[in-house]
């Protein structure tokens, strides 16, 4: 049996959803849309129910693209999500406004359960609801009160579901043509007026407000959070804390996970008989799974904080104080968290854009977040800076190298904001964006909801994005481990016959062999193939191979380069790598790594969309391949053109 969950935003709907479905939830998208479709199963005795949570709405008539799905489902009894029963969750302190949606649903002849939630807050405000009077006004509806935040009333709800007679009212609350068409703006406004007129006449007998509680006083905390100075300071502080956690603290579990998979890979390699299966598992599959798992700590930590801030109502205050600043860029106050997360890793940031209500603001944020130089780019930046930027100091104390590093981050940010403006002007929005947002009361978060959110996001990432990441890791591994007929063996033969090889010690010989194998592999050939394309940027085929390898993860660039130059890929060999690269010469006998080519490469890494894990997540969040492909192409073009420009200018 299908049950739907409806209600205004901020009524505690998600708490009730979590209470009923527990850990048995799936989150997907409504077909063809970016609206989340959250559903879960639960059982009462022998009966199975599927509960679907719908976005919070004030009326069935949609005003945003996301809201259209509710109207489409609820007005079409043949729709696969059309419910047998609907639970309408209502904020007890705002009964009048909540009844608009309720009476609309009643007039759609859907069997209903009315849940009066957040009764504790209503009581504090001196609001009393006469349940009997309410029952009298809506006789065919099962009525109950709950305090979902603390789990109070769950049994009452379950009983209401069990005992429901599936009756609907024989009379319409508001007689007349209903529902109106989606485009009938004037009709909808008139209907709302009429409904409220009728609701108002009823409400006098149902809701009693204690007079001495009537004056609303903005809480001191709210004054602080929206203060012209403290508001922003507090926000910066909050961002700083979150950033520290995902940038530094997350590294501990991330290192453990990397170590675990490395050990597992070694163990598997030793335990299985040698051959293709062994290689596939120990060098392809296991590192691939490790590469997915390593993101989990950052995702979990970011969403822990976001859920906390969202549940408490703080993020609405952020939107309030940031709206004027973010509007020219087509962004939302909530866009800042994803962008800041992008400095550590874009992936949790992109997943965090869910909290942005407006789809255009959400989409723009998703597209520009990867431009915020993530931590994977750092090994690339530091290597190239050490290679081509002189270690001098401006005025005796400002490091030029440090300045360049800062410049790269600044470039990313500026590009993100610039692209944001371009997208704001070019993406057409049928329903124009607006703010008109309720500012919910500040409250302490429900920890169950926070935990659910973290679990959900980790699950989404591992299952949805994880599959794509794993597939591409294995493909890249295969391309680097196998080559066209005889090609790898031929390169190894050439390497072995060189005098340099004979004079080297055992470990260096292994490095030379590894380098030769990479050159002869498919990816080596691909690198040579794209060489003419990247020469105008100042790169050779060896850089080409490393660029391609970075699709797995940007930091792989360094390891790949190390292997090609026959250096063992570990942190102790950084200096050897740098000196070998400094001496690297191309066909014309000139240095490969010059100021021009180095800067060109750095700029390339600022812009290029290389992390396929990000591509996978963007695909998931936008529910289509077109946006990630557009992102790949646009960012790729930005990378190519800027790198070309920089190389030609600095030459």
């Amino acid at each position: 049996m299908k049950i739907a969950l409806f209600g205004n935003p901020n009524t505690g709907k998600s708490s009730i959803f979590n209470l009923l479905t527990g850990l048995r939830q799936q989150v997907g998208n409504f077909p063809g849309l970016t609206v989340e479709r959250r559903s879960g199963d639960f059982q009462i005795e022998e009966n199975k129910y599927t509960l679907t949570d719908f976005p919070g709405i004030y009326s069935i008539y949609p005003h945003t693209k996301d809201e259209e799905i509710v109207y489409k489902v609820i007005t079409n009894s043949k729709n696969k999500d059309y419910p047998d029963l609907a639970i309408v969750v209502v904020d007890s302190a705002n009964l009048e406004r909540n009844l608009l949606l309720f009476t609309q649903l009643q007039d759609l002849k859907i069997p209903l359960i009315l849940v009066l939630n957040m009764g504790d807050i209503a009581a504090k405000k001196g609001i009393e609801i006469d349940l009997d009077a309410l029952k009298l006004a809506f006789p065919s509806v099962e009525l109950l009160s709950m305090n979902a935040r603390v789990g109070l009333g769950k049994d009452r709800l379950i009983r209401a579901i069990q005992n429901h007679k599936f009756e609907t009212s024989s009379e319409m609350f508001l007689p007349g043509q209903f529902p109106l068409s989606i485009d009938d703006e004037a009709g909808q406004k008139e209907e709302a007026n009429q409904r409220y007129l009728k609701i108002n006449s009823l409400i006098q007998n149902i809701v009693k407000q204690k007079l001495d509680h009537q004056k609303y006083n903005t809480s001191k905390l709210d004054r602080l959070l929206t203060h012209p100075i403290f508001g922003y300071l507090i926000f910066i502080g909050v961002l700083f804390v979150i950033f520290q956690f995902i940038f530094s603290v997350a590294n501990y579990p991330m290192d453990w996970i990397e170590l675990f998979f490395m050990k597992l890979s070694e163990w598997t390699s030793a335990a299985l008989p040698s051959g293709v299966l062994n290689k596939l598992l120990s060098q392809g599959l296991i590192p691939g799974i490790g590469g997915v798992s390593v993101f989990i700590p950052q995702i979990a930590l970011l969403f822990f904080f976001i859920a906390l801030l969202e549940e408490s109502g703080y993020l609405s205050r952020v939107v309030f104080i940031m709206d004027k600043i973010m509007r020219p860029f087509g962004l939302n106050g909530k866009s800042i968290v994803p962008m800041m997360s992008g400095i550590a890793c874009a992936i949790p940031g992109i997943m965090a854009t869910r909290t942005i209500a407006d789809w255009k603001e959400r989409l723009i944020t998703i597209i520009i977040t990867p431009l915020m130089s993530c931590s994977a780019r750092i090994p690339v930046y530091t290597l190239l800076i050490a290679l081509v930027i002189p270690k001098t100091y401006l005025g005796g104390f400002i490091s030029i190298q440090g300045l360049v590093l800062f410049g790269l981050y600044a470039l990313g940010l500026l590009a993100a904001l610039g692209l944001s403006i371009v997208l704001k002007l070019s993406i057409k929005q049928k329903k124009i964006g607006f703010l008109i947002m309720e500012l919910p009361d500040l409250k302490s978060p429900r920890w169950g909801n926070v935990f659910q959110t973290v679990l959900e996001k980790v699950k989404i990432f591992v299952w949805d994005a994880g599959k794509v990441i794993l597939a591409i890791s294995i493909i890249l591994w295969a391309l680097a481990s196998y080559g066209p007929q005889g090609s790898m063996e031929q390169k190894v033969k050439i390497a072995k016959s060189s005098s340099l090889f004979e004079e080297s010690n055992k470990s260096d010989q292994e490095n030379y062999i590894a380098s030769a194998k990479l050159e002869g592999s498919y990816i080596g050939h691909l690198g040579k193939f794209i060489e003419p394309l990247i020469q105008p940027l100042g790169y050779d085929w060896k850089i080409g191979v490393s660029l391609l390898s970075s699709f797995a993860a940007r930091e792989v660039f360094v390891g790949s380069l190390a292997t090609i130059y026959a250096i063992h890929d570990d942190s102790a060999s950084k200096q050897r790598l740098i000196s070998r690269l400094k001496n690297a010469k191309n066909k014309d006998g000139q240095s490969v790594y010059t100021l021009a080519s180095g800067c060109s490469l750095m700029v390339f890494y600022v812009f290029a969309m290389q992390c396929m894990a990000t591509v996978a997540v963007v695909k998931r969040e936008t529910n289509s391949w077109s946006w990630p492909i557009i992102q790949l192409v646009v960012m790729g073009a930005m990378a190519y053109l800027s790198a070309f420009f920089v190389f030609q200018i600095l030459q």
Partner: protein
Amino acid sequence: MIMKLSEMSAGSKVVIETICHPFLSTKLTEMGMLTGTELELLYKAPLGDPIAVRVKGFTLCLRLDEAKYIHVDSL
């Protein structure tokens, strides 16, 4: 005297006369902004925009270019 909500200062108590937004009148109405509804402008954001308005039992944030279509009379 009838003024636009966007012109009012913090602390003002007003009552709605009409709403004439080109495309969001329905939304505002559905959220409880009806002729005769009393509003209190609680405070404005640091840059003066948006504003926080108390409507019956809840607080609503509006941009000035949304609030300017709400015509009010002071109480």
